[in-house]
């Protein structure tokens, strides 16, 4: 069976069915789906909906404002993944703060912060620790490494999020209507496929190559066809039932589960992480809190509804007009992985050539 047969199989499974909506909850999937052109080859009644899978998009304005407030102070260096640079806070972005002269370093691995801290003993280094379960253990490991090296000038500004709680939240929302989930393969590498067993609708853990995504879509459709609902592991090369136990242990040594606010949604119970008391000296918000002005932004941005899959980006009045990737209003437009940015980049609502 090559992919054309796989595509035929998908068509066969979808034939004669009502409109089926499958939600991917990983921004990396969102991008991979657009880059491979998967939407264009799916049958008309199979719609892919992008969920809250981009951690940059679900990070609050307040968090960005706080990061900028630190970056603007002389004695700090803010280290961040490149993804965060252009995310708008309530007034400005890290890229704009950088143009104003603040010290912001783009890094590839949180471990790079260790060297920055060693090279700049008179500065305080703050790592912007965002991400889901895949990335969170890397920040935890960096804290342990800094502790072992006796570093006193490396801190975390933490806003990590957890995937299963937001899926639970979505499933319990009265207006949520999705027929299946493509589950985030690299989150599952860490937490294990079994961590999704609570799901009540057809689901498949997916890899990131086009054919791996198609396999997972076929699996979801097959479950719908058979009237089953399970968590199929379609990324068995790296996803096990229990996940990476060492990573889980390191994560829970440094971090504990906490309630967390998601941009565009609300406070979701137990959906985020905070640094444990024992490691408080690595938490910049505890060591040296900074005051930011809380700004209530009022505009027509519908990021929140987009993230929940209730509307598609083009249904937002700002999309492509007041809100574009170079002048983003909502965070979904700014991250490469953001739903709106991906829609904009790959042809708005006109994916077909």
């Amino acid at each position, binding site marked *: *069976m*090559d*992919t054309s047969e*796989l595509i035929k199989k998908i068509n066969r499974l979808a034939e004669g069915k009502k409109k089926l909506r499958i939600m991917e909850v*990983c*921004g*990396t999937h969102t991008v991979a789906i657009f880059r491979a052109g998967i939407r264009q080859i799916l049958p008309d009644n199979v719609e892919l909906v992008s969920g809250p899978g*981009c*951690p*940059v998009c679900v990070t609050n304005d307040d968090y960005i404002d706080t990061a900028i407030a630190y970056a603007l102070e002389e004695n700090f260096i803010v280290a961040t*993944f490149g*993804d965060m640079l252009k995310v708008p806070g309530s007034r400005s972005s890290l890229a704009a703060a950088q143009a104003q002269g603040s010290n912001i370093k783009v890094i*590839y*691995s*949180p*471990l*790079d912060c260790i060297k920055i801290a060693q090279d700049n003993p008179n500065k305080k280094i703050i790592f912007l620790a*965002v*991400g*889901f379960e*895949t*990335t969170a*253990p*890397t920040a935890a*490991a960096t804290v*342990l*490494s800094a502790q072992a090296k006796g570093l006193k000038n490396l801190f975390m500004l933490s806003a990590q999020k957890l995937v299963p709680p937001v899926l639970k939240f979505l499933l319990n929302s009265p207006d949520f209507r999705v027929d299946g989930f493509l589950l*985030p*393969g*690299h*989150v599952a*590498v*860490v937490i294990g496929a079994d961590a999704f067993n609570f799901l009540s609708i057809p689901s498949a853990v997916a*890899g990131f*190559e*086009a*054919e*791996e995504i198609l*396999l997972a879509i076929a699996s979801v459709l097959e479950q719908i066809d058979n009237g089953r609902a399970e968590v*199929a*592991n*379609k990324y*068995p*090369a*790296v*996803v*096990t039932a229990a996940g*990476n136990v*060492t*990573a889980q242990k*390191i994560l829970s040594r440094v971090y504990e589960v906490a309630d967390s606010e998601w941009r565009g949604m609300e406070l979701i119970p137990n959906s985020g992480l905070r640094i444990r008391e024992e490691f408080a000296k690595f938490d910049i918000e505890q060591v040296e809190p900074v005051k930011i002005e809380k700004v209530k932004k009022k505009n027509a941005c519908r990021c929140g509804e987009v993230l929940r899959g209730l509307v598609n980006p083009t249904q937002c009045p700002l999309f492509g007009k007041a809100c574009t990737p170079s002048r983003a209003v909502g965070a979904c437009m700014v991250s490469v*992985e953001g739903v709106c940015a991906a829609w904009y980049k790959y042809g708005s609502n006109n994916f077909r050539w």
Partner: protein
Amino acid sequence: MCLAFPAKVLEVEGDLATVERSGVKRKASLMLLPEAKVGDYVLIHAGFAMQVIDEQELKIRDALVAEMNGAPRSVNLELGIRN
């Protein structure tokens, strides 16, 4: 926020490994995957090895990609499916 790539472990020194993908090398931490050994294929995310890749599965996937790029058929996709 989950870009990751498969790479081969070339050297291990303490909890730091040198890994390689198509000739491109970088350092990766083994703090989250202490069981990785020289010769293993591992999945790297943000500079950390996250999981040892089941080589059989990797071969199946790579052969699939090669096939899509025009190489002769070498793999039966059904082999790659496990529930």
